[in-house]
């Protein structure tokens, strides 16, 4: 097994997520990109667990999944509440706070 491919794939996914966060304007899409980054990390963790012959990395992936779920819920709750008052989920419309 060649771990390099898995690591490259996860680095690629992480980069796609990062770029998505930076260029997309819808809060929900930005948020999905962050989830993509977290899942890329999971792939890295599982790959290294395999390379090292340990279970630690897999258990860490569980932790990341749970934290990601909690983050989803908190994030969606905040985005929903802002949507209820503003009727828009675009990051660009959030413009009350600026320099």
């Amino acid at each position, binding site marked *: 097994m060649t771990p390099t491919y898995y690591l490259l794939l996860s680095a690629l996914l992480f980069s796609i997520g990062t770029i998505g966060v930076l260029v997309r304007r819808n*809060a929900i899409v930005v948020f999905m990109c962050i989830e993509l*980054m977290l899942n890329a990390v999971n792939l890295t963790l599982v790959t290294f667990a395999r390379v090292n012959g340990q279970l630690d990395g897999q258990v*860490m992936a569980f932790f990341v999944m749970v934290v990601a779920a909690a983050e989803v819920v908190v994030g969606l709750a905040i985005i929903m509440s802002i949507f209820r008052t503003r009727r828009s989920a675009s990051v660009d419309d959030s413009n009350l*706070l600026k320099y």
Partner: protein
Amino acid sequence: MQEQFLAQAQQQVNAPDIAYGAIAPVLIVLGFACLSVLVEAFVAKERRWGLQIGVAAAAIVLAGASLAAFISSNDAAGGPTGKTGVTTLAGAVSVDKPALFLWGTLLALGVLALLLIADRTVGGDMQTEVFPLFLFALGGMMVFCAANNLLTMFIALEVLSLPLYLMCGLARKRRLISQEAAVKYFLLGAFASAFFLYGLALLYGYAGSVKLADIATAAVGTDRSDTLLFGGLGLLVVGLLFKGSVGPFHTWTPDVYQGAPTSVTAFMAACTKVAAFGGILRVLTVAFQSTQWEWRGVLWGVAIASMAIGAIFGLTQTDVKRMIAYSSVAHAGFLLVGAIAMNTDGLSSTLFYLLAYGFTTIASFGVISLVRSGSGEATDLSQWAGLAKRSPLLAGVFTFLLLALAGIPLTSGFIGKFVVFSAALRDGMAPLVVIALVFSAVAAFFYLRVVVLMYFSEPAEDGPTVSVPGAFTTVAITLGTFVTLLLGVLPGFVLNWASSGGFLS
């Protein structure tokens, strides 16, 4: 491969030893947070507010008591200076001298922040959910300071961050701006924790373990991939610097400080900084001391950038909460100077600086919450013109706090800067100290600008009123100001405590 996994699973798994005495403060805070959730669930709406204040106060007081009990028993054991601490929960949590100091700091600052949050007479009429969220965040910060492996640190980071995101959006008045602050903080915070996590994964690949001590051991050997080590370190530190609102990773700070309810801002500004720098100090000292010559240059640059951004953008602000936010960015730069000194003086001086800065900041936000115009808080600086003529006492207190933030002698801010800069000098970072001194002079200018505005301008016709503070806010501001003065005049006791021992891994 399958056989290998099976062999792993067949290994004896032993239940870890748990030093309940050492981690009692954390258990109490988090246990009371759960209790607080139950109060939310089962107590009638009209009785909740008072009861929740009681639960939160009891949590902090009991945690403080158990912390004191552990410190005295810890000092009684071992040699003349006491034991250095204990590592418990299978090495996941290290309750050492810096952790104990940071826990004490967090609990003390937590009392002040709780007083501000609990005061309904002036500021926010927030939902009662703010109290369980407050306790969870406080518990997360305490774990974060003591986390001895990166996974524990990550979980603690989320436990402290997620409640803070929600607390930012709780304001009933100015709801739009508050929710906008929450969504910005959330998106950027989640982005930063993804970086932290990727750093964790790379370091796991590098060292085969996420324990800080194992990473340190692995970094001494040279046969491993430096790409993984420094890539991991860089990503990890980005996540940490974001939480500490340092330098170029500060973009959320002004928006969130301005948008969040002022009492929440006070809590966040003081306690998050303590927790974040506690984590930065531990990670850099325990795991990466042996490679410091490789990465210290980068953090030099970050510290300079942070001081420059804070001091220069702070000059142009017209909103007092944003101004304090940029001041916190500048202070983060000063703190980083102490954190990268990498000697015992650097550690103790940074700890002292955190304590001093926390008290001053909470008291400042307490004062800000009192100056109000018809629609809410009058945070625009033009409204503060001539405030001394209407309310000399308030203006006097705020002047003193601003001088402390600027680092004028006889305040805790001066002692903090003095010890941090002398530790950096002793570590041969003279150029950095000179730059830091220049930027603290620049920063002092914008604090003094507010002082001049308060004392030497004519008050505006429709200027803000200063509301009569409730008992809670009065106590918080008085305590904060008193500690700021006390640490400026008699810093010895706290300095001794801060320098009583190093990290235990």
